[in-house]
């Protein structure tokens, strides 16, 4: 079994997320062969890998996307069988997956979408609903911190947004929903320098509060700024290598092709 655990496993409580031998198929194709990993609260894991290695598939599978079929393995999140849950139940349990290409939702104002989602999650936690006014106050303040134009709150979700605005909008959702574990799939793509700084600041702040992160990225600058606990390299649907920041630096220097050859040797 190729299981990733942190070096602190012996002293840690039950992992927040525990994945074992996960095998995932899309149509007739097996995308993930066998994935095993544990993630603790507050941990930050960077997931690297060549295009098509299965990084996005892992996130979407954990989120419950209907296109991804789990044919073997298990995943437990916060003590529950994640794979038995509906997508919204996974979100209520505290799993947040930021999509690489967040879709448009025509005609649905961003503020309405965010408030509806937030209130659904709050209801699942037994917290009171936020009215439009209290919500807008919070959303505007967070938008400002993220450098997201507050006018985008009154526009349809992601419609006409630039790449960077979509990603900032994902970060706004993350900040509002306050999940236990966030999987950020290439959150830096399309973002300007200020945006990337805002991501780092927010991730570090939430991590300090106990939120765990899985960050998919190809860019060393972001990875270094995030100071990950662990770096994983995914190759052909398996975790091929587990390391620290040094592994990310190696990959940045030598590329994935070279890394694959080295691993085979």
């Amino acid at each position: 079994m190729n299981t990733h655990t942190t070096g602190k496993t012996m002293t840690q409580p039950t992992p927040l997320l525990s994945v074992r031998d996960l095998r995932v198929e899309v149509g007739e194709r097996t995308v993930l062969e066998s994935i095993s990993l544990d993630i603790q609260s507050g941990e930050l894991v960077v997931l690297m890998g060549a295009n098509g290695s299965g990084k996005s598939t892992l996130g979407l599978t954990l989120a419950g996307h209907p296109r991804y079929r789990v044919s073997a393995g298990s995943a437990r999140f916060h003590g529950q069988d994640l794979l038995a849950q509906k997508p919204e139940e996974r979100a209520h349990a505290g799993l947040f997956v930021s999509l690489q290409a967040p879709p448009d939702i025509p005609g649905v104002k961003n503020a309405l979408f965010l408030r509806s989602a937030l209130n659904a999650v709050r209801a699942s936690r037994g917290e009171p609903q936020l009215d439009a006014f209290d919500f807008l106050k919070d959303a505007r303040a967070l938008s400002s911190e993220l450098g997201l134009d507050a006018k985008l709150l009154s526009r349809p979700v992601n419609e006409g947004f630039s790449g960077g605005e979509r990603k900032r909008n994902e970060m706004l959702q993350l900040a509002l929903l306050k999940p236990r574990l966030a999987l950020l799939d290439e959150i830096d793509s399309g973002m300007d320098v200020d945006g990337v700084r805002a991501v780092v600041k927010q991730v570090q702040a939430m991590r300090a509060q106990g939120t765990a992160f899985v960050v998919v990225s190809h860019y060393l600058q972001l990875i270094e700024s995030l100071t990950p606990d662990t770096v994983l390299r995914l190759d052909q649907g398996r975790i091929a290598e587990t390391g620290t920041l040094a592994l990310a630096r190696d990959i940045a220097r030598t590329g994935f092709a070279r890394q694959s050859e080295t691993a085979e040797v």
Partner: protein
Amino acid sequence: MSPPPCPDLLDAQARLASHGWIAPKAENFRHLPPPPASAWLAPPATPTTKPTTEPSDPTESWHVRALDAAQADQFITQYLNPAIPAQRAMLFRGLPWPDESDAAHFGWMHRATCQRGLRVHIAGDPARHAAAPLRLVLHIAPAAPFDAPLLVIDVAAGAHCVLLEQHAFDPSADAGVQNLDLHIRLGQGARLQHLRTVAPAPHDRLAHQLHVTLAEGAHYDQALLASGSAYHLQRTQIDLHQPGSAARMGAALLAADATLDQQIALSHTAADTYSAVESLLLASGKAHAVLNAHTLIATGADNANVRQRLCAIPTSGQPRVVLRPHMEIHHDQVQAAHGATYGALPDEALFYARQRGLDEASALALILQGLQRAVLERALDDPELLTGMSAAPSRLKQARTAARQGEGTPLNLDAALARMTQQHLARSTA
């Protein structure tokens, strides 16, 4: 003693007697034939000679009111009883006879059975309307199980009006029949933004015919939100016969185990005219629905610019849907585009909403509302008209206070959209 029948009433009755009802193969109705003529005739009764008056209780029958009391002097209403010859003459004054189309049968039937009338005259005041358009609410409820109302709305030159037309039907009442004729005439440079909600009870039978005539430079925008019933016809005919006149129509239509027939007929005969039609139909179960758009560009309609877009999305079951985009172009210097698509539910958006915590039903409702809202927004070119409330900080506090005091905003198509979508999904599930 009853007054003698009016000549036009006799003409209408004679016409119906000689021409009969809509033929089974009539082009406009061949995919969804209407109920027989007998369904549209009032049960025998003695016509009343009592003049109708504006109801004192605004929730009864029909009335028009300004949202802003300070604008109440900008329009005049006349409630007229077509059973009284003098009032009938005033009611029908200046209105054309039904044309020769298939749908004219409904027009003749209406002439023969019309029971109540309302004329609204909107004064032209470009200076005042530039700052704030006149905002009116027209509330209509069936006056009886058989109802054939006539509405005439004249918008004076230069006026700018936003009209919310709300129809109220009682699902607990016996099956009703309504044959409504609505004539809208816009003066030079006038603009009417017309928001309409029509949600009949499942057993009701409706035929609404709108006739819109535009003078030079006039603009007419209609956002229609309607749901199906035992039979529901929404027909709009727009005449763009003067230079620079323009019309936009956006419709969000819901049919769950019901029938719905939308017919739009646009006629461009003048230069520099513009029209855009966009309809979105959500159909489920055993619904039977037809979207029928016909745009005529006549010889001489130089630089006419026309758009047609029809879309249907089955939300469940096996609805029967027919889309009929049709353009008839008799002039070279024009721009024209049309399309018809049968779509699918946006799976990625649904997953996205669920991943953010919304359950499947809520996510579906939100997304379907959004799809409809987008169509209505494009027709009005002013999203705020759908909410009736600005999100601007300066007005937010007022809106919040109003909301907490339980004051609704009547100019709110959004609320109707949410309610009707929920009903659609509930009926689909059932």
